């Protein structure tokens, strides 16, 4: 029996409300979110002594961000592993706080991916930056980000009989949650979604194919956005404005395609067990699963690899309506609407922590009654080629 430790807690959160923010910079989004998250915690700007940054605002990340904010932190961590960076940051903040190196850690994210008109999913390598071995072996082939995930979906279907219909159920459940979240509805409006309503499995299957077997509605949106999370030591957390949400387990992992490897297995298969062991909880105890939904297949693979069901049984698992917030079955999935229907500015890992915290505080727009335990699992990079997995297990006070 592992003794569950409560070394650090999320005490402040803020999600930037706009998904279309022309004329604003990522740094400004980060600063606004930082101020609001500290306010949410009842802490002040000068309390921050740990700075965590995924290099999304400016170059020389730890230096330029500290200077822009006006901090002289004791701890600077600029781990940048794509969308899961914020789960890595939460793990590192817990570690740094437990070691006494800082007391109040600030994680921020800001992106203007939509306003910049970045073609995140549909552009292949363009030969930017310095020459690299991997780019040299992939740029000539026109691999898009969506096709990358689609290759995982195709292989999963081949190995396990998973169907497009089963994948679609993930998009259906998260859209239902999005329709209950005013910020998500506003996001879909601002981003000019053609038809803003709950969707059906047929809607997903009838949306146009982007990269077989992934349809348009299997894919996340591209938005602007950002957020901030404040993580504090227990003695600070006790005096904060809101109930602390404890980080009780963390796992980090890397995975990539190798000769003969099985690309249906993600880094979550390594990070998940580490996080569960540290938290001393089992997946079937989890009330809310916030899982990186860049695409429907991302979620399916990660539900399996985190141990919510056996490998290959994800298709059947998500067919049972269990993903909805009001289902008696656990876990509820992406109750904010997720990247598929609420926001995806390129790296959405911070929103997983934010919505998991809302759930454990009882503040979600799709509140799971009595939610006590949540997991936030981020995915960074690209599933079929190289990616990271960050798993954070959270508990209410």
């Amino acid at each position, binding site marked *: 029996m592992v003794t569950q430790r409560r070394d650090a807690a999320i005490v402040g959160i803020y999600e930037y409300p706009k998904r279309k923010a022309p004329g604003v910079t990522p740094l400004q989004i980060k600063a606004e979110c930082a101020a609001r998250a500290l306010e949410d915690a009842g802490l002040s700007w000068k309390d921050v002594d740990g700075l965590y940054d995924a290099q999304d605002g400016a170059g020389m990340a730890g230096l330029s961000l500290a200077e822009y904010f006006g901090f002289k932190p004791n701890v600077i961590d600029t781990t940048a592993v794509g969308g899961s960076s914020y789960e890595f940051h939460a793990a590192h903040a817990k570690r740094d706080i437990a070691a006494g190196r800082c007391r109040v850690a600030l994680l921020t994210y800001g992106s203007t991916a939509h306003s910049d008109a970045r073609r995140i999913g549909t552009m*292949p390598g363009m030969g930017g930056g310095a*020459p690299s*071995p991997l780019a040299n072996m992939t740029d000539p082939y026109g691999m898009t980000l969506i096709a990358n995930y689609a290759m*995982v979906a195709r292989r999963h279907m081949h190995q396990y009989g998973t169907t497009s219909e089963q994948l679609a159920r993930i998009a259906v459940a998260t859209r239902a949650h999005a329709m209950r979240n005013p910020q998500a509805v506003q996001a879909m409006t601002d981003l000019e979604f053609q038809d803003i309503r709950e969707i059906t499995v047929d809607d997903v299957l009838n949306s146009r194919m982007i990269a077989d077997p992934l349809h348009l509605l299997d894919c996340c949106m591209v938005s602007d956005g950002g957020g901030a999370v404040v993580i504090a030591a227990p003695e600070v957390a006790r005096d904060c404005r809101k109930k602390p949400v404890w980080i009780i387990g963390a796992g980090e992992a890397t995975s990539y395609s190798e000769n003969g490897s099985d690309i249906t297995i993600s880094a979550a298969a390594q990070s998940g067990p580490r996080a569960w062991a540290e938290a001393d909880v089992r997946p079937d105890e989890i009330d809310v699963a916030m899982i990186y939904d860049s695409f429907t297949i991302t979620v399916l693979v990660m539900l399996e690899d985190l141990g919510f069901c056996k490998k290959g049984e994800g298709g059947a698992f998500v067919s049972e309506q269990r993903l909805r917030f009001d289902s008696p079955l656990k876990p509820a999935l992406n109750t904010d609407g997720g990247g598929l229907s609420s926001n995806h500015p390129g790296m959405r890992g911070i929103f997983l922590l934010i919505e998991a915290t809302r759930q454990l505080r009882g503040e979600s727009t799709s509140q799971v009654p009595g939610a006590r335990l949540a997991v936030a699992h981020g995915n960074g990079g690209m599933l079929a080629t190289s990616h990271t997995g960050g798993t954070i297990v959270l508990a209410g006070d």
Partner: protein
Amino acid sequence: MPDRPQPRFPEPDTQPFWEATKEHRLLYQVDRDTGDVVFFPRRHNPKNGSSNLEWRESKGLGTVYTFSVVRLNRHPVFAGLGPYAVAYVDLDEGFRMLTNIVNVADPTKDIFIGQRVKLTWLDQSTGISIPVFEPA
């Protein structure tokens, strides 16, 4: 047809691979001590760090591990191709490479996982040639 996005040099790990494509030779690396197959090309065997590697030439026969047919690509060269297939192919010598499957009437119907494929080449104006695969 206009050139694809090209590999860029100097890049010492992959330069010998691309030089050999000028002669339509598909190269991969093998650890002289352990026999481990190394791909993508690099200075060492990722299993043990050893740099005692040698280049060998593949026979160019393999099996489709997985694939996707891209319908939307905003890059001008690929936008002009119509639907095209990207794939991982497992070569018989034991390495997996990202590639395209070409010379099929309908990529959405004529490609399948487990399909046997053979090497063919897309010559570029730069002198290099891009290794792709077609049904064997």
